């Protein structure tokens, strides 16, 4: 992952790709919806790792076809025009490629990580101010994530999404508005009732392990 490669060699032409055929190849009905979604999420992690480790264009194209339309919708719901959202989406997805080496599946699922990139892009475009980011945690070869942890976090994120979908309409809308940037910090109620218990504990555990490995 650290070795350099000749500039631009893997990027001359987009690979041939048939998204529609591929998308239909998910075995609908063969597994339950939950299992299918979990499998898909785990797949996104694998694809992002392929981009990170091998600059894999095919994997990138798959991530793009799933996430770019969602990122664009997110930016439009945050107030961007369609053409501006398109431009920003392309930049967000290019950032995903460039910063793939910073992805850590024990702290964020792929959708979470893409959200943070899109959010930062939105801050850049709407506001000109800087955004302070927390200090990086130490990382190195010792801290390479366990695949089991990555899978578990991906599943937690999946469950969080389901829990969010089943919240009472009013509460869910309020949370969405907060994330689309429609609420100021003083309008966000402290008590959100978001079911974060499991996911928080798992991330906390990953941080503890990382700290432990570094001392």
């Amino acid at each position, binding site marked *: *992952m*650290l070795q350099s490669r000749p500039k*631009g060699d893997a*990027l001359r032409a*987009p690979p041939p790709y048939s998204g529609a055929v591929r998308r239909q190849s998910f075995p609908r009905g063969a597994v339950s919806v939950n299992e299918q979604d979990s499998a898909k999420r785990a797949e996104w992690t694998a694809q992002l790792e392929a981009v990170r480790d091998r*600059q894999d264009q095919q994997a*990138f*194209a798959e991530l*793009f076809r799933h*996430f*770019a*339309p969602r990122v664009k*919708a*997110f930016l439009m719901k945050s107030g961007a025009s*369609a053409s501006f*959202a*398109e431009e920003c989406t*392309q930049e967000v997805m*290019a950032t995903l490629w460039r910063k793939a*080496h*910073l992805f850590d599946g024990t702290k964020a*699922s792929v*959708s979470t990580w*893409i*959200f943070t990139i*899109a*959010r930062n892009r939105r*801050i850049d475009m709407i*506001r000109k*101010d800087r*955004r*302070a*980011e*927390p*200090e990086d945690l*130490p990382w190195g070869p010792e801290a390479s994530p366990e695949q089991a942890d990555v899978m578990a976090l991906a599943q937690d*994120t999946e469950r*969080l*999404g389901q829990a*969010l*979908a089943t919240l009472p309409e009013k509460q869910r809308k309020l949370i969405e508005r907060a*994330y689309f*940037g429609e*609420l*100021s*910090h*003083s309008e*966000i*109620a*402290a*008590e*959100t009732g*978001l079911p*974060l218990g499991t*996911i*928080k*504990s798992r*991330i*906390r555990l990953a*941080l503890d392990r990382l700290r432990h490995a570094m001392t």
Partner: protein
Amino acid sequence: MTMKQIRHHLNDALLIGYSAGTLPEAFNLVVATHVSLCDECRARMHSFDAVGGAIVEGTQVAELDEGSLAATLALIADTAWQAPVMEHPAQPGLFPAPLRDYVGGDIDAVKWRRVGGGVSQAVLQTAGKSTVRLLRIPGGVAVPDHGHKGMELTLVLQGAFRDESDRFAAGDVEVADDAMVHTPVAEPGEDCICLAATDSPLRFKGLLPRVAQSIMRI
């Protein structure tokens, strides 16, 4: 900085605001600095980011322009591949990376200005109405009487202070709304260094801060 025993944390509303990207710049700095010191709040921050991820995942899709992927690949090809680097690396010293970036160095790079009673401050440059400053309060001295509207967020970096509600030591953050009348007093001993953000410009009313002995119970 090493992890400390932190007893006072950020609330959910601040972490959601940070995660959603809607906090004023001054508050972002205090949140990012606290999260750098506090794994508990870092885990909560990542959890709130996961909520954002779930919202993006669950949203309806927008139609992309034709040739969107090709345009993105062209964008990627335009930039040279760079070796992985940490973006906000830790360094030895008192200030976590985000604060060091704003100050332009560690504690010895701060340009202090006296506000009276031995208390010094350094206002950090941020956009918008909200303001953020470093405060240095000698042991035993009270923070000068200051008026603020809205929320005040105070993170202790060194030493400790007490007010009517509790004790706040290094790493702790106090969230005070405008309804709260409090008189923070630095504990005897080393200078108390704090990072404080307020919703509106903060003005010290007088040059004579109240001293520890004269705290009124309000």
